């Protein structure tokens, strides 16, 4: 039915494996996003490509009880990415992806803090996976 393995022999996706250097901002979300992208792309020994990713994060209140307690938050994440040859040049693939991850704050402060950190980790995985999907569909990489 016309579907072929993305990582088939000699495919574009296979050419990315272990050859992409990932550059992120020096923040928590940047660090987590880079960790997940490297797990999905494979650590780069000598990078033939460079993936610049910029992340931004916003928190909104998802549920407020009648007595004003904030029961749930929602972290909104946005990642703007651009894949270029290692030496620079025009972007081979670029775009912006968005996702959200909710967490509860109904228990104590330590539980809410742990839930927030977990939400930030999940958000990084959701964004990284969307970036990977966009990279996998990029045709005719040099």
């Amino acid at each position, binding site marked *: *039915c*016309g*579907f*072929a*393995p*993305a*990582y088939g022999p000699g*495919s574009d*996706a*296979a050419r990315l494996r272990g050859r992409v250097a990932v550059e992120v901002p*020096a923040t*928590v979300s*940047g*660090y987590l996003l*880079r*960790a997940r992208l490297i*797990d999905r792309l*494979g*650590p780069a020994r000598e990078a033939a490509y460079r993936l610049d990713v910029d992340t931004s994060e916003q928190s*909104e*209140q*998802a*549920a*407020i009880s*009648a*007595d*004003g*307690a*904030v*029961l*749930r938050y*929602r972290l909104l994440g946005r990642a703007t990415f651009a894949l270029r040859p290692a030496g620079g040049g025009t972007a081979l693939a670029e*775009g*912006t992806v*968005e996702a959200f991850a*909710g*967490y*509860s704050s*109904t*228990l*104590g*402060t*330590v*539980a*809410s*803090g*742990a*839930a927030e*950190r*977990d*939400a930030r980790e*999940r958000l990084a*995985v*959701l964004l990284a996976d*969307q970036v990977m*999907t*966009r990279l*996998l*569909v990029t*045709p005719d990489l040099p």
Partner: protein
Amino acid sequence: QGLAQLVADSVTVTADETLVARGNVEAFYDGTRLSAAAIAYDRAADRLNVTGPILITTPEGEVFTARAAELSPQLEAGLLRGARLVLDRQLQLAAHRIDRTGDGITALTRTAATSCRVCGGGPPLWEIRAARVVHDEEARQLYFDDASFHIRGVPVMWLPRMRLPDPTLERASGLLVPQLFSSDTLGFGVQLPYFVRLGGRRDLTVTPWIATGARNLELRYRQAFRNGWTEIETHLSEDDNRAGPRYALLAEGAFALPRDIRLEFDIEAVSDDAFLLDYDLSDQDRLDSSLRAYRFRDDGYALAEITYFESLREAEASASLPPLVARLEREKVLTPGIGGRLTLRADADALWRDGTGAEASRDVARIGLSADWHGAGLVGPGLLVDTALRVGADGYAVSDDPAQDTAQTRLSQAAGVTLRWPLLRREGPASGATQIVEPVASLAYAGVQGDTVPNEDSKLIEFDATTLHALDRLPGEDLVEEGLSAGLGLRWSRIDSAGRTLSLQGGRLFRDRVQPELFDNSDLSQRRSDWLVSSSLDFGTGAGVELTASFDDALDISGAEARVALEQAQFDLSAAYLWLEPDVAEGFDERITETALDTTLRFGPRWSLSAQARYDIAAEAPVRAEFGVGWRNECVTVDLSASRRYTDTQDVDPSTSFGLSVNLSGFSAGRPAVAAAGRCEG
């Protein structure tokens, strides 16, 4: 000393040493340009007598028009009659007479100042009339004497003396835009912010709130350092809601230290739980004052943080929160010879409670060491095999809780493999779209030995697309899963050449045993979890929808969350919906379903409407509603807002508040004027 130039169609030199230029007369001197009907240069007196209509433009951007004038050849000093001065193409000052001294001082007598378009004979929307106005070009200030403020020609306010910065001045001490407000908690009143510029890097805004039911002094101090900034906001008030003085301190700051280390602090303290809500400063329900230092690099990170919490919630005693929490985290990332990514991690956290009774006074400290290896390889026809190994050891020290041993240790291990087989199909050049189907299967094993350590973290596993194949699904470090778990998922995405994306994803989690620590009603602790479905739609032009939901075999929904965001020229909208089944372990025993909406509609350059609402569907009660109307033209911006908060506790009652702010553009304190100057009708 430059030369004054005069250009005209014809010049006549009279016997008494005067040179009269007529016809398209223009004079230039050192960047100042004057055009007029006729200019007479009296050499003996070294004066230019100019007959109008006169237009003078100065290098500083001032524009003068006048009927007649006597000027020095340098076109600076002199007197204009029936003149108008325009500053920064915005503020017009019409005067019976304008005297310009040579050194940048312009005095206008019997003046009318406005930034509104003056149409036909009618008075402008607003103007300031003054017996005398002095414009100091150097200090960029306008000093008004015997000034009266007129709306549509009707005098509404009289001020013996007034000083306003001219439009070209960025940071100047002076009165900012006053805000009118009325609310159930404070009564009707006005905020009068006064901005004090303390040099180039510091400023202080003093804002007295004067209202029928309250008086508050708000101070906001800001300082920029070479490597950081700090902002301190204090409130000191007394009002009818509560006896005695009330206060709030909200301070924060961030500094960049050498070797990429960042230091941040945040202090939040209030006199009573209801202060922030009564004064509509924030709807935070917990205050967290923290000191944080961290550094993130490609090969790892380090973080140290200590936080003091104070709860504003009615049912929560700060003492047992716990109020004081400290955390240390350090990670080192290596790429070993065998490939993949090895992360060595050390972390510690400690919490102190000072409540009464075991639960409310337990203090816990934990130290943990762990190593994570993650590697992947291609196998067969494009099959990606991802393996992950994790080993960890945690030591706990517990005090003030007889039910817990004082020292406890625990070991944990986990291993997982994830198979990913992405398949591509390129549609024809018509749409330039590509479809990708990605089946993913994962199998993980987790083992635990040692004590059942105290759990301070939450017990709720969030069920989203990452949960299916994660190795460690529980938030925090105290709880760890046990046994075998398998995740099956399938994701289909279609991405077109313009980046528009539609993606659908589904999956389910299987376990070999029910998780002891998680209570049974959380579906993720069962042997077969609910179905998970999540989808996202990105139209590429600032419009997107994201949805995730879980339901059981009988299609009964156990959780859902959705969000829509649209950003268009004429309107932007963001709406969210949440459905959470009750979870006693997690502290809420009835279903939470809440929806929120935030939208702004812009009707042409003048009108804008904004609305925010939050509704608790389960309790069938609104939580918050706000409505705003904005009107702006070239010389005034009016913002009217009404908001209602339904929070109802012992300290806080449902309250409605209104706000009105009128901002005159044309003075640097006001926002820049919108270029929507209407044409003169009729």
